[in-house]
């Protein structure tokens, strides 16, 4: 085997880790984000580099505004978010395209084709077109770092924010990256008053609108000379135009074909596209999700094939692509064997399980939100009835209430996590108070942002930099908004939680129930010394299956044949008994309340 060069100057990094390194090397001074898969690790890594201010903002709109402010002050700035986060940040984005920048400004959007961890699979290349902002799209970790540095140069040269788009298979794929040179911006930091550029009154905005068109024309020209837009000539019978991770699938499946790789996916290098198309016999456009490149190529009057062959849904890979283009299936593949599913589940000891079990007894419509607790929609809890976007629970519950009037009293609740409430739940709650609703809102305060990997948030008071201050007081905030009935409950005490819920949903006024219990995956919870363990006293278990209703992964069902049941001293008709997995049990005690036969008791540690 041939060895390639000397390692040591090379590191193995994910796309997100490489972007953090790229931001550091580009001399970024301020970076702001809201966590969201697959973008979270960019700031989690960038915060370890010296000389960069990094923060978790309450939401993506604020993150972009903070980055834009830093740019106005002459610093290179970064905002990162998942694809749906850019919907939240779209408002500042569209006008930042008008103001332009002082220090370089880059927005990373991490898209999630296949919806590994998202509620939709929107294609954010459309934002580049709609907002009139250039967009770069790297194929792997090494390019991610290089493209980010180029993006800052483009941003400052063309006076524009720049979008950099990754997808899950760029963000989370590790590859070899070479550390590079540090760069500095030539922009001087400081306060500079430029009202015609920064104050987007209609009169100023009309002038900037003209500048924006001129800039796009200059960028179109630049795209033709941009080195990361490149043609790789091979067999000219087949040509592919592609970008991002799709380029890798093209090279894997068709190593001999000619390829036009677009490193900048907006604006397009029209002459380069025309030239490439004129030299190949069959032209294919390969891209995940929307026919973004294809639509443009067709608008140039060039015949090509794209979405009639290549799927517009989900991720691609070299296998799907080869089949799509050649129409031929692979050789003999093993048929899948049916095996039990492993659906994602709330952890053993999760406080959400307790409150959702209590909610499930009310038989209400549960307007839900985004977080670990969305898993409560699955069996056996089955206690969430809608989930749309960050913060939507409160607005949708309130809208249902307005549509149905008084008859809906006691029939609808909104459920939202602490971090999601800080992100965009507060405004929904203001609507409820202002417009005289009677919505019951349950805020799940587990002192962290669980699903994305335990980031602190404004209600915890801990910052990304590690500063531990006082968190936002959620009960006091609700009180200040005008909620008169704010109750705090322990979600593990399901009987009391149910009692409080029944009382609050019947109230003809808005009320907020806050469940307070930390996520069991937090380090301090894992380390706690007073952790209990529970066990099942076999003799007392009647096999009623009540404890299985909460779907705790630590509670297992041991099936019994009639003979086995008899031998163990059970009734012959007993089909099995429950056991508690001692390694998994976290000692929350929720199951104790469910057992009417006192079969679940504290175990020796």
């Amino acid at each position, binding site marked *: *085997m*041939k*060895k*390639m*060069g000397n*390692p040591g100057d*090379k590191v*193995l990094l994910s796309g997100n880790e490489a972007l953090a390194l790229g931001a550091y090397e580009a001399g970024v001074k301020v970076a702001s984000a809201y966590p969201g*898969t*697959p973008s979270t*690790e960019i700031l989690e890594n960038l915060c370890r580099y010296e000389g960069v201010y990094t923060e978790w903002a309450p939401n993506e709109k604020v993150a972009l505004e903070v980055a834009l402010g830093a740019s106005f002050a002459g610093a290179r700035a970064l905002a990162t978010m998942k694809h749906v986060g850019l919907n939240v940040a779209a408002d500042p984005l569209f006008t930042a395209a008008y103001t332009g920048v002082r220090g370089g400004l880059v927005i990373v959007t991490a898209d999630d084709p296949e919806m*590994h*961890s998202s509620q939709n699979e929107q294609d954010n290349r459309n934002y580049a077109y709609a907002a009139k902002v250039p967009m770069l799209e790297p194929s*792997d970790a090494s390019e991610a770092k290089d493209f980010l540095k180029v993006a800052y140069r483009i941003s400052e040269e063309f006076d524009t924010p720049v979008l950099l788009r990754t997808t*899950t*298979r760029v963000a*989370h*794929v*590790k*590859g*070899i990256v070479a550390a590079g040179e540090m760069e500095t911006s030539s922009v001087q930091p400081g306060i500079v008053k430029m009202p015609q550029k920064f104050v987007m009154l209609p009169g100023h905005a009309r002038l900037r609108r003209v500048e924006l068109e001129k800039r796009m024309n200059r960028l179109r020209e630049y795209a033709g000379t941009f080195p990361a837009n490149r043609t790789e000539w091979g067999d000219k019978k087949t040509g592919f135009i592609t970008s991002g*991770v799709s380029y*890798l*699938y093209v*090279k*894997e499946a068709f190593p001999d074909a000619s390829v036009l790789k677009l490193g900048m996916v907006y604006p397009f290098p029209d002459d380069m596209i025309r030239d490439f198309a004129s030299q190949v016999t069959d032209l294919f456009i390969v891209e995940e999700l929307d026919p973004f490149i294809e639509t443009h190529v067709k608008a140039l009057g060039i015949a090509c094939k794209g979405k009639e062959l290549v799927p517009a849904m989900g991720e691609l*890979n*070299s*296998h799907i692509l080869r089949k799509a283009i050649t129409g031929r299936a*692979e050789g*003999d*593949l*093993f*048929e*899948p*064997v049916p*095996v*039990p*599913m*492993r*659906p*994602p*589940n*709330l*952890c053993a000891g999760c406080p959400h399980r307790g409150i959702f079990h209590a909610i499930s007894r009310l038989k209400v419509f549960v307007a839900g939100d985004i977080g*670990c607790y969305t*898993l409560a929609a699955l069996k*056996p809890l089955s206690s969430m009835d809608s989930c749309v976007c960050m913060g939507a629970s409160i607005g949708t519950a309130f809208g249902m209430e307005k549509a149905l009037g008084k008859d809906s009293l006691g029939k609808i609740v909104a459920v939202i996590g602490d971090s999601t409430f800080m992100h965009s739940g507060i405004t929904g709650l203001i609507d409820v108070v202002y417009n005289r609703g009677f919505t019951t809102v349950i805020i799940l305060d587990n002192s962290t942002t669980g*699903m*994305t*990997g335990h980031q602190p948030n404004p209600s915890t008071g801990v910052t990304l930099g590690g500063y531990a201050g006082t968190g936002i007081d959620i009960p006091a905030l609700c009180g200040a908004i005008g909620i008169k009935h704010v109750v705090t409950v322990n979600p593990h005490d399901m009987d009391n939680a149910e009692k409080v819920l029944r009382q609050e949903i019947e109230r003809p006024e808005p009320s907020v129930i806050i469940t307070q219990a930390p996520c069991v995956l937090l380090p301090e919870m894992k380390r706690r010394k007073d952790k209990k363990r529970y066990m099942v006293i076999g003799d007392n278990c009647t096999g009623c*299956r009540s404890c*299985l209703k909460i*779907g705790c*992964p630590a*509670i*297992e*069902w041991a*099936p019994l044949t009639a003979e086995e049941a008899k031998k163990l001293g059970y009734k012959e008709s007993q089909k*099995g008994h429950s056991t508690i997995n001692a390694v998994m049990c976290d000692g929350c005690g929720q199951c104790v309340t469910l057992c009417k036969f006192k079969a679940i008791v504290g175990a020796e540690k």
Partner: protein
Amino acid sequence: MDKPVNLFLCGVGGQGILLASEVISSACMKSGFDVKQSEVHGMAQRGGSVISHIRFGKKVYSPLIEPGAADIVVSFELLEALRYLPYMNKNTKVIVNTQRILPSPVATGMDTYPADVTGQLGQRGLSVFPMDAFAIAKKAGETRAVNMVLVGALSAFLDLEEAVFLEVIAERIPEKIRKVNTEAFLKGKDEIGGILAGG
């Protein structure tokens, strides 16, 4: 070696598959190869089935292994090996940890755990290497080192130096648990050596 080697790891969230992948990929890089490793974070990790693709060779384009193209599969849990059968072909070597972690439908009695998993794989002509990685890790002194036992087992099939793996383990694993993890790696490698020597 023009074609990349495809290593497919599967198991259950919490088994240390991501750290194992990092150790293997780093060893490939240190040995002078191009390498790509792909995994998924977020909701997929909550107690679900976890997979990791590792591809190394002179030049690697796609980060994803195609169906039927895995050279070696390392299944950290017994039934997971069966779930990813479509990634295997008749020449695939399958290292299977015989440890069972019950999926929730099985734990709650709604479904049953598949019988004779290694037999089902063997029937299809695959070379199966079953091992009790949990017991081996326990012997090494740390039940959480199951992942390093399996990295060791995998290394027995790779044309990479043992010293490179040990170097990566020394770099990646905190000093307090380094010794047991190194021990686990070596015991895993010996286990495969024993199976191969025994026929």
